[in-house]
């Protein structure tokens, strides 16, 4: 049975280095960092003070008239842009045939922080809808469904930092099996104070900047954001005259059942191979790998080893860059934003750089597109994501 081709016809992004695809594209091509001093709260008690915050130009971009939390707000901005980009105006799709899959690590984490803050201050009478939304994360897809009239599946897919890729993979499944015509798939997470404190305590956060693959890399930068793509059948996209960015050629999902937090090169290589096999492609066919590339000493070395295992000799001929060097680790949004970056790279013919790169590491000796974007036409991109709990997922995207 031949599988019907699914394409990405719209993208939306809210990233620390650019809100909206136009700004994000400019930033990726220029190698602009979105890492800065954290301003949304006082970090003096924290061991680190920098991160990747989204700064909205107009506060009015907060979701109109609702008490929606920050993660919902980021999601709403991203979904609205993706729908518009795909040319899907209200009423153009049967609501029953459009659904949303949201990847997220912690949902409405800031509402939960506020709630727990009130406990810590000895108050227990501040419970509200926001508090409920704070730990019942399907409030986010529910609000998106309400705002945009999605009557189809509205679910959270939670595989921590690989959530966005899992959402895209399941979205393709739903479309290919006729469960929906359009799936809005992506990821979002608001800035988490617990993540900043927790990753710092795990010695996984860099004090100043994220330097993936560099010998002196010191860790990740905690960040926030949202990324969404519009998935539909290629034949449907063509018949409505939509201009697709990419075909989703292959998906590879796995769980390495190795360790809660330690990366495992075998598990990483496994999903890359699965995704290539699913796409019917060889390693030589891949022009670009968007790395998980968190910038922690262990992740980047493990990922480099994994690419070598999966790609063999082709590893050294395949550029592998990490946009986390520019935006930090946006948690559940990360792989979704990276999928958006791959779509832009495929359409506009460039490789996003790994910025902050100065000293080669023998353990990370692949071409990481150091510091400046490379302008070249690419046909096939792979997007890697590896998460807590050994959840790994790779996507293979082809230029449409």
């Amino acid at each position, binding site marked *: 049975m031949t599988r019907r081709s699914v394409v990405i016809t719209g993208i939306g992004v809210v990233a620390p280095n650019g809100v909206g695809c136009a700004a994000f594209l400019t930033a990726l091509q220029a190698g602009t960092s979105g890492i800065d001093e954290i301003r949304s709260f006082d970090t003096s*008690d*924290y*061991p680190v003070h920098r991160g990747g915050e989204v700064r909205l130009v107009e506060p009015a971009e907060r979701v109109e008239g609702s008490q929606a939390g920050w993660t919902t707000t980021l999601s709403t901005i991203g979904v609205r842009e993706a729908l518009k980009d795909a040319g899907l105006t209200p009423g153009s799709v049967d609501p029953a045939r459009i659904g949303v899959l949201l990847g997220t*690590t*912690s949902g409405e984490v800031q509402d*939960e922080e506020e*709630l*727990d*803050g009130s*406990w*810590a201050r000895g108050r*227990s*009478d501040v*419970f*509200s*809808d926001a*508090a*409920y939304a704070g*730990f*019942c*994360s*399907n*409030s986010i897809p*529910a609000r998106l*469904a*309400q705002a945009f*009239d999605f*009557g*189809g*599946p*509205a*679910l*959270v*897919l*939670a*595989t*921590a930092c690989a959530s966005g890729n899992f959402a895209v993979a*399941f979205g393709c*499944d*739903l479309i290919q*099996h006729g469960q929906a015509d359009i799936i809005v798939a992506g990821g979002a997470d608001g800035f988490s*104070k*617990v993540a*900043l*404190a*927790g990753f710092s*305590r*795990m010695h996984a956060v860099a004090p100043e900047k994220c330097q993936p693959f560099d010998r002196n890399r010191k860790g990740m930068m905690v960040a926030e954001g949202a990324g969404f793509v519009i998935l539909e059948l290629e034949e449907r996209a063509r018949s409505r005259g939509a201009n697709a960015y990419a075909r989703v050629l292959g998906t590879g*999902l*796995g*769980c390495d*059942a190795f*360790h*809660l937090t330690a990366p495992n090169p075998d*598990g990483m290589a*496994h999903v890359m191979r699965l995704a290539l096999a699913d796409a019917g492609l060889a390693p030589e066919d891949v022009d670009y790998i968007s790395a998980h590339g968190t910038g922690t000493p262990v992740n980047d070395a493990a990922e480099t080893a994994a690419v070598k295992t999966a790609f063999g000799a082709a590893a050294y001929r395949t550029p592998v860059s990490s946009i986390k060097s520019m935006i930090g680790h946006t948690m559940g949004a990360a792989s979704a934003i990276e999928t958006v970056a791959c779509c832009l790279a495929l359409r506009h013919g460039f490789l996003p750089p790994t910025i902050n790169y100065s000293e080669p590491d023998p353990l990370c000796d692949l071409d990481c597109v150091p510091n400046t974007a490379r302008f070249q036409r690419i046909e096939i991109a792979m997007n890697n994501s590896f998460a*807590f*709990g*050994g*959840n790994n997922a790779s996507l293979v995207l082809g230029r449409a």
Partner: protein
Amino acid sequence: MRTCISGIGVVSPVGIGREAFWTAIAEGRSGITEVDLFDRSGVSCRAGGQVRGFDAAALIGPKGLRYVDRPSQFALAAAQLAMTDAGVDRDRTPPERVGVVLGTAFGGQSSLADCNRERLVEGPQYLSPAKFPNTPINALSYQIPIRHQMRLVNTTVSSGMNSGLDALFYATFILRRCPEAVLACGGVDELSRNAYYSCYFRRELAGTSGPELSCPFDRRRNGYVLGEGAAIVVVETRDALDRRGGTPLAELLGFGSATGMGPAGFEGRVEAATAAVRGALRDAGLEPADVDYIAAGANGDLELDLIEAQAIVQVFGDRRACVPVGAVKSMTGEAYAASGGYQMASAVLALQRGVLTRTINLDEPDLACSVTHAGPATSSREVRHVLVSSVDRFGRSVAVVVGRPR
């Protein structure tokens, strides 16, 4: 592709293990007690479907449990019970073919609350690095594949009260990707202080405007009693199950879901619940007349129970007199993601033994919920197909049709 359930593992307020659970719900035994998991000062409610007598070490071994939080222990134990119940021979089942799909509404919320407390009271520099990895939504699933060497997939699905059934839906797509797979699939949620207080102050709990009673479909209902636990089933394709010589408990025949929010309000939500049930029947290739029992999601919420009842009336019409309805949440409380698993376990009990779970505390049936309630008169009969339905707070409904193994 034929898909079946081959094992059931339950950690619930009414019993631990499939047989204990089945015995309790067949007898109509309530698991609602006075909650003693946390300080309840400031709230007037006391009741909860709290899991009691849970000895994690006895079920899953004493090692390495120190940093595994309580709901993760529920999930681990339920997965272990389900895999044992299914008779999966792990010596002959490679890790690459075994996976987990877990539903949860609240996820690692109580560990997140712990970490927030540490961060705020002791300071960010003292937050426990061992506890922190338990904070993501999917953290409750982490230990299962590590302990049981499952490498296929470990996905968490979160959709409130529908999470457990949506996890099953997701699992069927993993089986399409890998028809040889053995999947531990279900739901887990914990009765946490934040959930209890939040639902209380939203006036969703029974006792905030009437008697504190878990009484779905009853005239006196005024909210749900919050429950907890884990319910996991083993899901495989029929071909794979036959090949390994396993015994099916039930077949998963159809899924349906729909979202109704927006301006249509209550009517829109009834429409969505109706569409979900119709969709599940259509997907199963069945007519309403083929259904012999409905394992309802009703929990005592004034509105949700009515929405579900009206959807049943819409779909079954006059035939509803022949289709008894039972709500297991009358005994377990609203356990969010675990609820879907409890409902599924009650559906399999009906298919396997002809025992129809009754709604307890139904002394004064609400005539507006004009369904036929399972009772002494409808017990012990041959059941061909069961409809499992669920309506979430946020307007989305899910329905699943299961049948006797053919």
